[in-house]
């Protein structure tokens, strides 16, 4: 029983950063932006979270710093890809490379360490005991006691599905992706919608980053996003942006991520267990394309 609970909890924990980044990515996906900068936004968010939490002595200010950092990245993306019409793919690559370089440089410059910075002064985001539910046996330990950001992520997912499919903003957002010229000629500049989608994406990635460095662990390590931004991109494309689908896929990746941690104690070399989430990504992409082909035939 405990193993099961442990696995479920590891799954949820592993799924959260991917879920948040993918929900952010789904907004830009619907707005018709080929946004691959989630990885970079998340990494900068993770670094800024540690920065804010350590110097301002508050996990909450740490989260705000993470969001602000990701927003700066989004600002650069907006300036280049939306305003100056550079290629979105190249802009995304540049931002992701920039994020690795910047955070590594600042890590050494500000904290004078190489590899990772960990300190008792970093305030972690607290776990939340849900009232009422936490008292129920089994269900309590299954649903309660997670990190605050995990609940935020669930809320964000539900909210995003609502915003995208039920609201005026959602109609315009999807319109920007389907046919930007049509939206613009309807009196809503598509670029405005795209800018908003990038801002929302940055907020989500900032939260994801804050979770990585202040929730998942309590440290910042070089390149600690470790491809989660890319996996979130795969998740978005796999389900064509549907937030519920993203939730399922994220849990799946979270499961494999949790499996990695579980199997580390065993006889399998860690290099192999660490591969699991990425191999799972490839396998799911393959299965998806096979299924799609079959449906077309």
């Amino acid at each position, binding site marked *: 029983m405990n193993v099961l609970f442990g696995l479920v909890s590891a799954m949820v924990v592993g799924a959260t950063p991917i879920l948040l980044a993918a929900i952010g990515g789904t907004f830009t996906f619907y707005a018709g932006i080929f946004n691959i900068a989630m990885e970079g936004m998340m990494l900068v968010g993770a670094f800024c979270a540690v920065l804010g939490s350590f110097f301002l002595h508050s996990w909450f200010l740490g989260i705000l710093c993470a969001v602000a950092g990701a927003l700066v990245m989004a600002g650069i993306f907006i300036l280049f890809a939306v305003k100056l019409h550079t290629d979105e793919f190249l802009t995304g690559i540049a931002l992701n490379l920039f994020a690795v370089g910047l955070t590594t440089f600042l890590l050494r410059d500000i904290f004078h360490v190489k590899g990772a910075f960990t300190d008792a002064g970093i305030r972690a985001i607290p776990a939340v005991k849900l009232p009422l539910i936490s008292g129920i046996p089994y269900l309590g330990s299954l649903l309660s006691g997670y990190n605050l950001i995990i609940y935020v992520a669930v809320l964000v997912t539900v909210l995003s599905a609502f915003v995208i499919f*039920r*609201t*005026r*903003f959602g*109609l*315009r957002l*999807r*319109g920007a992706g*389907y*046919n930007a*010229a*049509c*939206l613009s*000629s*309807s*009196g*809503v500049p598509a670029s405005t919608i795209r800018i908003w989608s990038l801002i929302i994406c940055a907020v989500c990635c900032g939260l994801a980053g804050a979770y990585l460095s202040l929730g998942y662990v309590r440290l910042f390590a070089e390149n600690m996003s470790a491809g989660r931004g890319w996996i979130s991109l795969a998740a978005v494309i796999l389900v064509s942006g549907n937030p519920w689908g993203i939730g399922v896929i994220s849990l799946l990746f979270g499961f494999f991520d949790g499996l990695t941690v579980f199997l580390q104690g065993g006889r399998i070399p860690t290099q192999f267990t660490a591969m699991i989430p990425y191999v799972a990504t490839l396998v799911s992409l393959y299965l998806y394309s096979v299924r799609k082909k079959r449906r077309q035939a």
Partner: protein
Amino acid sequence: MARDVLIDLQHITKVFPPDTVALSDVSVSFEAGEIHALVGENGAGKSTLMKVFYGLERRDAGDIFFRGAKVEFRTPREAIAAGIGMVHQEILLIPEYTVWQNIVLGAEPVRAFGIIDVDRAREVVRQKIEEFQFNLDPDALVGDISVAARQKVEILKLLYRNVSVLVLDEPTAVLTPQEIPQLFAELARLRDKGHTIIFISHRLDEVLTLSDRVTVMRRGKIVGTSAASELTKEDLARQMVGREVLFTSRRQPQEPGEIVFHAQGLNCSDTEHRARLHDATVEVRAGEIVGVAGVEGNGQFELVNAIMGLAPMTSGTLEVKGKDITHADILTRRTLIAFVPQDREKMGASVAASILEDAIMTHHILDPRFRTWRGLGLNYRHAAEFVDQIRDQFTVSMGHSSDPFNSLSGGNQQKVILGRELLLETPFVLMDQPTRGLDVGSIEYVHQLLLDLRSKKRAVLLVSADLDELFMVADRIVVMCQGEVVADLATDATSREEIGYYMLGGKEVAHAETGS
């Protein structure tokens, strides 16, 4: 009936840098509650004038008055807010959205928190559809409805925003002949409800049928405005082109020579094994123009592809000048066949390439004078001379030969393609809709070119959806229906009615009658 002047454009001038004068001191006024046609050849400035009015283009001089007050629309949004809406040539809708979603997009009725009030939106759209009798389902996906219905959605989208003036840029260009009367009835109904309609077109019959008044433009200037009831098609054409345009045949009697092109029993099927061509047999003699008529999609396209070797045939033989080309590769066919395809921009040319590059296609392979260094290099001097030859011989108005092909107007693009193909000096010429989308002047030019080919004893196969065109230039007309050649008639001994009868499957009807 005197109406009030609603829109007054005064001395509008528009210059595209560096020195292309698109509109030169244009003054025209539109009255409330009229259908006013704006006609002219391609490039006469009709669309530009309306774009200036609508806030899509800046003007260099002139004033715009709307309801007596001087106005300045900087964006279409401002024009719509003032009650003016424009439907562009290319339909701009979201196929993934339903009709009502497309209509309300940008002006959605909402409840608290920006949640779309779906019930109200659908109700308002349904009311508008009923009010104007547009016969649309508000819940249908736009991707599933016909082009004509999409156009209605575009118009409704503007009516939903309560515009009183509608500007329609060539609305019939995307419609089939059967859909046009319905659109006209709807536009007339809008006018009767007090809307003002400005209708851009270069199809003369339509202009005369639909509009109350007509303004003709030529080369960025106004030629004149008159009541449609006082005009004839010939008047309009003369005003548009600036000279007499002939709508009657100028074919000189001429005995055709030997058989140049012979297609025997062509069959081909599509990927689902449905027959697209069934035992099609066509022959063309030297000095003869044979027209191919038919409702679109009855095998004409497949016939053209089969002749050019672009699609595999299941059986049949093709001969040009006695040479069997049934299995010949495309390059061999090109030494015998000049080919002007239907789709200028996709098949006829590469629009992003330069005029020179488009002009020497095929020639640079077949003609060694275009090559240097044993075929490793291109002889650009010869190529440039060749472009000059096309320009002079085919009166192309163009900039430098290194300019992109799409810097040319539609008529000039077609002239470059015609020049390239006809200078191949082949015995057989295959033309698929060579005048589609061209203005009156260019159409007349192409027709003259066809007749010149005829007198030079070339064999021409002309596929056209325009019966007038076939009657004007063709010696014989073959009619295709469901992949079969159902009739082969001498032009002088047939009528439009007879052709139309065969186009709609008359052969089967005739068989049934004799059978019973």
